[in-house]
């Protein structure tokens, strides 16, 4: 390495100060101005996290939020060179650490993940897929929106304001988050376990609604009834309108 140990040490000391706010004297540094670096660096990180996690920011007190951000940035070496991707590392940090706030707010881990998923789906690269918007819902193979994620939550973090969620809300909540192809907006649809199973099948490739219903019924040893088919049709009609189902297989 061409860099002398002293030079490295001075650079590391300034970087460490920016991360932790704890200043140890560095030769030649104007102490009355060096605080600008800590302020600028911290503001970038704090702004980005607030932007990615607005619901979490609203849930936590200012003291809790600031303590969390300071702890995260001090202890965690941020790996992403892309600052917009950095907030994912907060979720990972909190989860891996089993942070005390996750115990105070039992639903916080899911809330953080929901917020990050929304960012990721909004920002992620396009996943080109072949489809046509012209088709028949009852007979043509359906194509799933490729920019989507299936998710299961124990708390209804997608349905209720975080401050109103209680232990009584604990349950099983299934949803599909997806990016609308025209607007880029990220939205979600609530799902039943049966619908999750059908979407998982659809993930493997285009299939007709009828085939999806029959495979699920066979797996669960249920008869294919007119009611089931009608319920499936109602769901897929809505899914097509909202673009969770992006269209039909191109013949």
């Amino acid at each position: 390495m061409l860099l002398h140990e002293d030079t490295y040490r001075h650079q590391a000391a300034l970087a460490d100060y920016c991360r932790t706010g704890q200043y140890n004297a560095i030769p030649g540094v104007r102490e009355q101005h060096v605080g600008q670096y800590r302020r600028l660096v911290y503001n970038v990180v704090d702004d980005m996290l607030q932007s990615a996690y607005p619901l979490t920011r609203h849930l936590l007190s200012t003291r809790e939020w600031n303590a969390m951000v300071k702890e995260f940035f001090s202890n965690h070496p941020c790996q992403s060179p892309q600052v917009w991707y950095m907030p994912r590392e907060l979720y990972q940090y909190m989860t891996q650490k089993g942070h005390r706030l996750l115990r105070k707010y039992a639903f916080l881990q899911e809330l953080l993940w929901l917020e990050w998923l929304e960012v990721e789906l909004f920002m992620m690269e396009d996943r080109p897929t072949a489809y046509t918007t012209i088709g028949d819902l009852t007979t043509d193979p359906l194509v799933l929106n490729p920019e989507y994620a299936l998710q299961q939550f124990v708390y209804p973090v997608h349905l209720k304001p975080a401050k109103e969620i209680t232990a009584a809300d604990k349950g099983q909540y299934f949803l599909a988050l997806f990016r609308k192809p025209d607007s880029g907006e990220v939205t979600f649809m609530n799902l039943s376990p049966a619908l999750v199973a059908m979407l998982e099948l659809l993930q493997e490739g285009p299939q007709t609604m009828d085939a999806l219903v029959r495979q699920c019924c066979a797996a669960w040893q249920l008869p294919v009834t007119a009611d089931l088919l009608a319920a499936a049709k109602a769901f897929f009609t809505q899914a097509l309108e909202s673009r969770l189902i992006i269209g039909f297989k191109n013949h």
Partner: protein
Amino acid sequence: MVGIGFRKDFAVNLLQSPSFNPAFIEVAPENWIGVGGYWKKLFNQALEKYPLYTHGLSLSVGSPDELDLDFLQKVKCFLQENNVQLYSEHLSYSKCDNAHLYDLLPIPFTADAVHHVSRRIRQVQDFLERKIAIEIVSYYTPVAPELTEIAFINAVLEEAGCDLLLDVNNVYVNAFNHHYNAKAFIDQLPMDKVAYIHMAGHEQVADDLIIDTHGEAIIDPVYDLFTYTIQRLNRDVPVLLERDFNIPELDELQHEMDRLQAIKTANLKKTAYVIA
């Protein structure tokens, strides 16, 4: 030609405005690599209208850490895919001890840092198979300096064989913060290496400190320094207006770009006349 930093805050207005006419746009590759959906559509629309210049934020050429070659590969692909005219980075570091800091820290002005940074810039240029331009950053304190700022910069430019992105506002800010003459500083720069110029506003936060915010209009003394720079340069290079925060109406940005272009035109014409 005078361009503008393509910011998400005014991307839609920029694309829709018939009276806003930058000659090119500039982005940080970091903010667009791996991005799809809504922003990608706007970005693609912008690319249909404007040539693209780029100004990196995270390569951290001044870092003690190893270069992130995976990231550099992504930058290379981005430059190729988007027909980028020029790639520039900062003479600073934003990563240390394997941790990104997301802002630009000053490199100690030392001889060993010159060799270290220069080797890394050469490595980047070899990897990207193109020359890059390195920007003089604004700084608010020196760190363990052994050389003067100008000696450090000139040594890096010489040893790295790279171009210079001359941020005129940064020179003004540094001259104020560190008590030297901005014009004398510019006199000492190798003008033949200037490939690109940045112009921006700043904020004075204390009697003895200016912060390079990109959040205000360019002030007259910086325009004056720009005029002086163009006269010294004596040739046309692309100029970028940076505005990242506190975004005004596009008319105001257009007015700033027009003023920059007028200074270029007037001073380059004058020079041509004198030579003739």
